[in-house]
C-alpha cells in the first residue's frame, strides 16, 4: 500500500475544504537548533543577482589590500556596514576572443552566460540565474523573479535561450500584485484553503498541451524549438498549480508587505533609488515567504541612463563625455552616479541581512552575485572587471574578502556560485572564458 503523505491527504480533501494545520504557529517554523525547517528539511538556499551599469572609477574603487579587512577607497566607502557580509572581486577579465566588442553588452553577457555574444540581438544561451533556478527554484510558486529599478522591462540580464528573454518587472506595484495578490497563500495562515479553481485550470492545461504538441508538427525546426520551450514551461505551470494545492511550510520571517505606491516613469537617480528600495523590500519578503528562491535585480542597465536633475547628461553619456579631472584622476560626475548605485547595493544587502532566519539571517542562507558591463566605461574596457557577492550560502562561502583575480576569467565567480548551489558541472563557459577553477579563497 502506498504511503499516505500529506500531499495525498490534501489532494483527497481538495474541493475547497479548509484544512487546519495542527502545529502551534510560533514553534512550527524551525527545528530546535534553528538550522532546519520544522519538517526536517534544511533551510533552503537562495540565489540572487544584482547588476549595475558602467563599472567603476578604478583609482578610487580598488582597495589596496586583499583578503579580509580590506580598505574601502572613496568610491566604495559606503560599503563599511556590509563589508564583512560581502566579497569584492577585482581584476577579473572577460574574453571576447574573435567576437566583436559589443559596447556595454559583451562584458555582462560573458559574466552571466559564460560566452561572448556575436551580436546585440542574440545571447549565447541561458544565463546563470536560469541554470541555478532549474536546480533550486523548482519548488516555489515563482521559479524566478526578475525586476529592474529602471522601470523598463527590457532592462534585464536574464535569458532562457538565445532569443528567449526573461523580461523584468518594472513596477513594484505590479510585482506586489503578482506576489501578494489574489493567488497568494500565506504560509503562516492557520487554515489552508486551496482555490477550487486550480483543478479546473489543470484540467484545461491538458488541452493546451495537446495544441502545443500539434503545433510542433506544423512548423520548421527553429520554431519547433520555441514551441518545445513553451511546452516545457507549460509543464512547469502545471507543477506550479500542483504546488498551490499543498499547504506551504510556515516561514518565520514572512510578513505580507504593504502595498507599494505607483511611481512615475523615469530614471532620475532619486526615482530609481525609490523604485529599487521598493523592489528590494518586496524581494526580501518574496524570499522570506518562500515565494521564490531565485531572483534578479537590476539597479541600472548596462548603458546606465540614470539622470540627475540639473545635470544635462545621463550617466552613460557622462561616462564618455566627461573628461578625467586632472587633479582627481577620475571623472567626478561619473563617480557620483556610480556612488548612488553602490549606496543601493548597500541597501540591498542590508535588507536581506536584517531579516532573521534560524540562528542567522536570510542573507546567511543566500548567495547574491553582482556584476557590471564594463570596468572603465569611457573606453568600453572589459578587462579588470569588478564584481561583488553577498551572503554565505548557509556557511559554505567566506565573506569579508577582497580577491584580486589576477586577470583570470570573471566566469570563475559564476562557476563557483553554481557549484556551491549544487549545479553539478565540470566547467563553465566557452573558449577563453571556460573555467573549471573555482575561486578557492572564498570556499569554506
Amino acid at each position, binding site marked *: 500500500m502506498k504511503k499516505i503523505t500529506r500531499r495525498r491527504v490534501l489532494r483527497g480533501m481538495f474541493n475547497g475544504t479548509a484544512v487546519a494545520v495542527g502545529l502551534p504557529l510560533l514553534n512550527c517554523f524551525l527545528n530546535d537548533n534553528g538550522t532546519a525547517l520544522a519538517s526536517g528539511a534544511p533551510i533552503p538556499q537562495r540565489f540572487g543577482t544584482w547588476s549595475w551599469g558602467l563599472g567603476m572609477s578604478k583609482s578610487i574603487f580598488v582597495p589596496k589590500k586583499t583578503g579580509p579587512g580590506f580598505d574601502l577607497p572613496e568610491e566604495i566607502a559606503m560599503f563599511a556596514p556590509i563589508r564583512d557580509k560581502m566579497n569584492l572581486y577585482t581584476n577579473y577579465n572577460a574574453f571576447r576572443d574573435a567576437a566583436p566588442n559589443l*559596447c556595454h553588452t559583451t562584458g555582462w553577457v560573458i559574466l552571466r552566460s559564460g560566452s561572448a555574444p556575436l551580436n546585440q*540581438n542574440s545571447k549565447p544561451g541561458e544565463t546563470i540565474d536560469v541554470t541555478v533556478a532549474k536546480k533550486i527554484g523548482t519548488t516555489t510558486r*515563482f*521559479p*524566478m*523573479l*526578475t525586476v529592474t529599478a*529602471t*522601470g*523598463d522591462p*527590457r532592462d534585464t540580464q536574464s535569458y532562457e*535561450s538565445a*532569443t*528567449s*528573454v526573461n*523580461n523584468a518587472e518594472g513596477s513594484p506595484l505590479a510585482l506586489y500584485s*503578482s506576489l501578494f495578490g489574489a*493567488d497568494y497563500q500565506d504560509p503562516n495562515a492557520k487554515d489552508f484553503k486551496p482555490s477550487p*479553481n486550480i*483543478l*479546473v*485550470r489543470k*484540467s*484545461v*492545461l491538458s*488541452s*493546451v498541451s*495537446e*495544441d*502545443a504538441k500539434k*503545433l510542433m508538427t*506544423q*512548423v*520548421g525546426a*527553429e520554431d519547433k524549438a*520555441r*514551441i518545445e*520551450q*513553451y511546452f516545457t*514551461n507549460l509543464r*512547469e*505551470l502545471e507543477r*506550479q498549480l500542483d504546488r498551490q494545492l499543498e499547504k506551504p511550510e510556515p516561514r518565520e520571517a514572512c510578513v505580507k508587505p504593504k502595498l507599494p505606491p505607483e511611481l*512615475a*516613469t*523615469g530614471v*532620475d537617480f532619486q526615482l530609481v533609488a525609490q523604485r529599487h528600495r521598493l523592489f528590494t523590500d518586496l524581494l526580501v519578503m518574496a524570499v522570506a515567504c518562500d515565494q521564490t528562491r531565485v531572483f534578479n535585480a537590476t539597479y541600472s542597465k548596462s548603458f546606465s541612463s540614470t*539622470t540627475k*536633475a*540639473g545635470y*544635462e*547628461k545621463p550617466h552613460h*553619456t557622462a561616462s*564618455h*563625455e*566627461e*573628461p578625467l579631472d586632472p587633479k582627481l584622476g577620475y571623472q567626478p560626475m561619473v563617480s557620483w552616479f556610480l556612488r548612488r548605485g553602490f549606496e543601493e547595493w548597500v541597501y540591498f544587502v542590508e535588507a536581506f541581512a536584517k531579516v532573521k532566519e534560524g540562528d542567522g539571517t536570510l542573507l546567511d542562507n543566500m548567495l547574491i552575485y553582482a556584476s557590471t558591463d564594463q570596468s572603465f566605461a*569611457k*573606453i*568600453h574596457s572589459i578587462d579588470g572587471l569588478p564584481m561583488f557577492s553577498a551572503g554565505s550560502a548557509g556557511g559554505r562561502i567566506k565573506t569579508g574578502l577582497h580577491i584580486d583575480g589576477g586577470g583570470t576569467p570573471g566566469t570563475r565567480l559564476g562557476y563557483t556560485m553554481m557549484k556551491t548551489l549544487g549545479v553539478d558541472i565540470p566547467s563553465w563557459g566557452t573558449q577563453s572564458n571556460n573555467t573549471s577553477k573555482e575561486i578557492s579563497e572564498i570556499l569554506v
Partner: protein
Amino acid sequence: MQSVETRRIRSLGRFGGLFWTGLTTALVLGIAGCANYMTDQRSADTQPAADLGPVDVGSVPRARFMTAQQYSNMIADVFGSDIQIGTPIPPLMRAPDGLLSTTAGSVGIPGGQLMQLQRAATSIATQVVDKGDIGKELPAHRSYLVPCKPKADNAPDDACAAKFIRSTGRLLFRRSLDDAQVADWVGKAHQGAEHLKDFYAGLAGVLEGMLIDPMVLMVVDTTEPDPARPGQRRLDAYSLASRLSFFLWNSVPNDAVLKAAESGEIQTPAGRARVVEMMLSSPRVEHGVRAFFDDMLAYDKFDSLAKDGMVYSRESGAVLKDAREQTLRTAYDHLIVRNRDYRDLFTTRDTFMSPALASVYNVPAVPGWAPYAFPEDSPRAGILNHVSFLALHSHPGRSSPTLRGKALRETLLCQVVPPPPPNVDFSAVEDPDANLHTARERLTAHRANPVCAGCHKITDPIGLAMENFDGAGQYRTSEGGVTIDASGSLDGKAFNNPQGLAQALHDHPGLPTCLVKRMYGYGVGGMTTAVDKPQLEYLNKRFEASGYRIPDLLRAIVLSPAFGNVAEPPAAPVPAIKTAAQ
C-alpha cells in the same frame, strides 16, 4: 462637416486603382566617412512581371508571438474594450532591421511570462463571464458575451457551452474549431461546471486555457499547395486572413474576414481584393496604421522617456504622452484620412494640438485634441519638428544633434550609422573651453579627432539643423547667449534652417523606398533580404506611381502574390539588402 471617418473612407476609395504603372527610381547615396557601413535602397530597371507584382517570390512562413498591442486589440475586438487586460506581454527588443515586430518571429515564451499570461487569462475570463453589479456600475458581460443562457447557472450545459466555444474560439484561434476540438473544450467546461457547481466558472476555465493556447498566442503561418504554381506552396486561407488582419488592423480577423477564408474566396484575386477593400474601409485600419508608425518611429522609447524637470520645467509625462499621440494622429490624418503624399508628412504644417502640448509649442490652448496648423512663418514644418522626434532623440537635459541625425538616417532612410569605436574618447564634447557655447561649436571640436569625424559628419549636419529646438522640442534662437546657426546638409543638399532640412528629407530618394522596405517587412513579419529585391522594386514603382499614397501602398503589398506565396527558408543566411553604394 465631414467626419474623419467619412473622409478617410472616401479617400481610400478614390485612390483605389491608380497605381498600375511603374517608374524606375535609382537612388544613389554618397556619403563620405562611414559610407561602407551605410545602407539605402536602390532599385534597378526591371519591369514588373505582372500587374500585381512578381509571381515567383514569396515570404518565409513564420510563427510569430503576438505583440502586447495585438493581444490587447484582440481582447478588445473579441470581448470589448472595457475588459481590463494588464500587461501580460512585455515589449519586444528591436530587430536589426529597425522594427520591433519582426523580432516577434524569433522570441520565445519564457516560463515567467507564461505565468503572467496565465494570470492575465484568469482575470480576462473572469470578467467575460461576470454577472455584473448594478451598484458598482459593472456590466453583466455574460449577458452579451455568452451567446446563450444555460438551463441552470449551477450546472453544466453542453449545448450552450458549445455555442460559446465555437463562436469565441473561432475568433481567438482565427479559424473554425473542428468538432473534435469543440468536443474537447466542451468536456472541460462540463467538468469545470460540475466541479465548481457553476456553468459560467466552467466556461471561464476553458477561456483561460484558450487565452494561453500557443495556437492563439502564436500567429503561425500554415501552408497548402499552390494550384497556380505546381510544386510550390502558399499560405492557407486562414493564415492569409491572419496575415492581412495583423498587418492592416494589428488585430485578429473579424467574422467577415474569416468567412472569406472559410469559403476560400480570400484565395482568389478578386476575393482577396474585395476583402482588402472591406478591411481598408474599417475603422480598425487606424489601429494598423498607427501600430506600424509607432513601431517604425521607435515610439516604444516613449514608455521610459523622461526629461529633466529642472532644465525643462514645462515637460511632463502628459506632454510626452501627447507628443507621441500628436504625431500618430497627424500621420493617420495626413496619410489615410486625407490620403496625402507620404513625403509631405515631413513638410506639412497641419497637425493636432492638445492643451498640454500647447504650452511647449507656445500656442493658444483649446480643450481636448483639435486640428491645428502652424503658421507659414513658424519654424515648425513636418513631423521632424514635432516635439515627439525632437524630445525622443535628445538627452534628458539637452539636445543632441548626433542622436537626431542618427535617428533620421536610421528610422526614416533605413541607413545604418555605425556605433562609435569602443575606445573613442568623447571628452572634447565637454570641452571646458568657455568659448564653446553651442552644440555646433562643441561638436566641431569633437570632430577634430579624425576617428570621430567619419561618422559625425553623416549625423551632425542633419542634427545641427534642428538646434533651434532644445532637448524638449521647444523653439529657441540662441544657446549660451550665441545665436544658433541651424544650417546643415543632407547628402549634398544644403539648407539654413529646420524647414530646409524638412524639404531636403522630403526630396530624398531614400525616404519612400525606406518606407516600402519597412512596411513590406512589417507586413510579412520578417526582415527583407536579397531575395525580396524584385518585390521591393515592384512596390517602389507602384508607390511612386501612386504619388506616394499609403493606402495604395498597403493595397499593393497585400494584393501582391508575394504576400501570400511561400518561399522556402534560405539554406544559408542571406545578407540583408545592401541599399547604399556597395
